[in-house]
């Protein structure tokens, strides 16, 4: 079996370092005298690095906290605790001018191109708006020309500069959103489900565009999505989230072909593969039950209530995200960080047999 080559990141210097990031949303009772009665633990201790020029995919089901992570990285939400270092500087503590300077370099592309563009602004105004906030990037007289250039870069006709968002299809609108994200020449773009609202035949166009732009401008992406196939396609490394925690993180080959966390294995085995022959070949793990509420997560390992391997120890001890001791020191692809007491390798997508065919 030949290992598919992963694109080597431009350099191994982390551009963004996330350490023990926590976001709890308080649950209150009472109108005049608000009393805190608990908290929704949306993100509960997440750590990862993003390297320059790479794409880090973050996957997980709804409610696992992946979109909250995106907002925390943009400092759109105030973190409860933890740090996000951008080039060595903790952005969760910044405010005012310093924050504004950092935000120029971290931009975002949103999921729904129908609601994330102001319907009463022209495309030119939408893409040019970042220049009002950061006038140093493009001098006033130069802005229209810069917007035309951006439209051209994302594959839209520069003549469309005076049109309104409703005159565009979903895929074209997402290109406008991407152009807006590119306007300030950022280093990092956080993409929160950028293609899930698009039709299948249009998704590929947008994914290809994003890859092209990454090569052209040396961008780093944090690519958040629930579609595991697209995440594998675009990512160099992938992190799997469950109920506010990172369950497993590694390169795309490590996660997809050598997953060691039971949740990753179940998630991968549940994805329908567009190949009827795979119906018989694949072993599917059907999980029982639903994701527990993040307001009242299980003790110990968060996944234990749905896990077929769970034992007494899983309820007592929280597994740490680290290379499991059974694989420590080995150079097999299974030796990557996985937060499970009973981590074991299992090929669930049947990639070995596909490669041979």
């Amino acid at each position, binding site marked *: 079996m030949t290992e*598919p080559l*992963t694109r080597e990141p431009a350099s191994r210097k982390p551009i963004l370092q996330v350490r023990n990031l926590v976001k709890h949303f308080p649950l209150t009772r009472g109108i005049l005298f608000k009393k805190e009665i608990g908290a929704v633990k949306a993100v509960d201790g997440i750590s990862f690095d993003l390297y320059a020029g790479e794409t880090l995919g973050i996957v997980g*089901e*709804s409610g696992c906290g992946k979109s909250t992570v995106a907002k925390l990285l943009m400092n759109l939400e105030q973190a409860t605790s933890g740090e996000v270092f951008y080039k060595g500087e903790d952005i969760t503590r910044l405010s005012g001018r310093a924050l504004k300077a950092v935000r120029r370099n971290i931009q975002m592309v949103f999921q729904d191109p129908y609601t994330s563009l102001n319907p009463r602004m022209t495309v030119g105004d939408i893409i040019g708006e970042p220049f009002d906030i950061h006038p140093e990037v493009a001098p006033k007289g130069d802005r229209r020309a810069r917007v035309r250039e951006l439209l051209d870069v994302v594959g839209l006709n520069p003549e469309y500069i005076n049109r309104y968002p409703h005159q565009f*299809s979903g*895929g*074209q609108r997402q290109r406008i959103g991407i152009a807006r994200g590119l306007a300030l020449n950022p280093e990092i773009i956080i993409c929160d489900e950028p293609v899930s609202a698009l*039709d*299948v*035949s*249009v*998704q*590929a*166009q947008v*994914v*290809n565009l994003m*890859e092209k732009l990454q090569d052209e401008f040396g961008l780093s992406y944090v690519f958040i999505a*629930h579609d*595991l*196939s*697209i995440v*594998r*396609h*675009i990512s160099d490394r992938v992190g799997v989230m469950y109920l506010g925690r990172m369950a497993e993180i590694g390169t*795309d*080959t490590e996660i*997809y072909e050598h997953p060691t966390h039971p949740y990753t294995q*179940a*998630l*991968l085995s*549940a*994805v*329908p*593969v*567009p*190949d*009827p*022959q*795979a*119906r018989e070949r694949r072993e*599917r793990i*059907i*999980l*029982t039950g*639903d*994701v527990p509420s993040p307001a009242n997560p299980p003790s110990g390992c968060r996944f234990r209530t749905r896990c077929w391997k769970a034992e007494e120890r899983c309820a007592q001890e929280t597994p740490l995200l680290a290379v499991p001791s059974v694989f420590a020191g080995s150079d097999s692809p299974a030796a990557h960080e996985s937060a499970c007491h009973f981590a074991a390798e299992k090929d669930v*997508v*049947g*990639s070995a047999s*596909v*490669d041979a065919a």
Partner: protein
Amino acid sequence: MTVTDERTGAAAPVSTTPLLEVRDLHVEFHTRDGVARAVNGVDYSVNAGETLAVLGESGSGKSVTAQTIMGILDMPPGRITQGEILFHGQDMLTMSAEQRRKIRGRKIAMIFQDALSSLNPVLSVGYQLGEMFRVHQGMSRKQARAKSIELMDRVRIPAAKERIGDYPHQFSGGMRQRIMIAMALALEPELIIADEPTTALDVTVQAQVMDLLAELQREYNMGLILITHDLGVVADVADKIAVMYAGRIVETSPVHDIYARPAHPYTKGLLRSIPRLDQKGQELYAIKGLPPNLTRIPGGCAFHPRCPMAQDVCATDVPLLHPVGAERGSACHFWKETIGD
């Protein structure tokens, strides 16, 4: 064989009457921007115990066809201009409203994509389930309640007895979709139409719900029309596929053949444009352009402006559904070339 009429050619091998047969259905909508031709001559059939997957993007007419079968098409603005919908060989479009009502709901049931907006938020699920039995079968409240609990058990909702008085918002997405399935099954219909039943659900829950649906279908030997845009879901459960584009069926096939050797450039493009979980690919193939505006569908083959194989004839002649081997059809002038390379 190229001269055979499309319909007789495709439908000839069927000796017994299928459970449901749609013949040359045309539906249009009158809008401010003109007439939107949503369905332009759709033919398909389902037998008992069989799963037909109708695959298409938004605007392909897959849901409008289903709504027409179910009789829940908004008229106006919608209008059925041509065609037949045969249930056990009887045309539902020409029968009396009274007769039609006996079939719809009782013999044909539908499951929608968004369970939260399909359930009434101010009534308990027990009431809504029981309503089926009270209205259609005249059961007493007590009997209906017992039947409802039994149904909730059938779709594996834990602690059905305690949860029967709960309201829809108290259930998770997957559980709500189970309740929708329970409602659809209540009267033991012969045919279920499921319109994107798992699209709003997470993958692990999607697998549970699809499994349940497939199991119940086998048990009751129902026909199932599964409407979806997800090629993966289709490969997992379908027996045969109809691919729709701009209100027409462009390819029909048993499930195994279409993935291995697609006979229409649109199907082929779709299959190549989705990334796969079990392979790390290079650049994705992208079908150029956009799906057409239904008020201005291109002449000839509707796909020709986006098609890599298009020739002059494609802009002028509408391709018929050519038979491609047994039980297969492709509406492409160049299906031989498409399937060959």
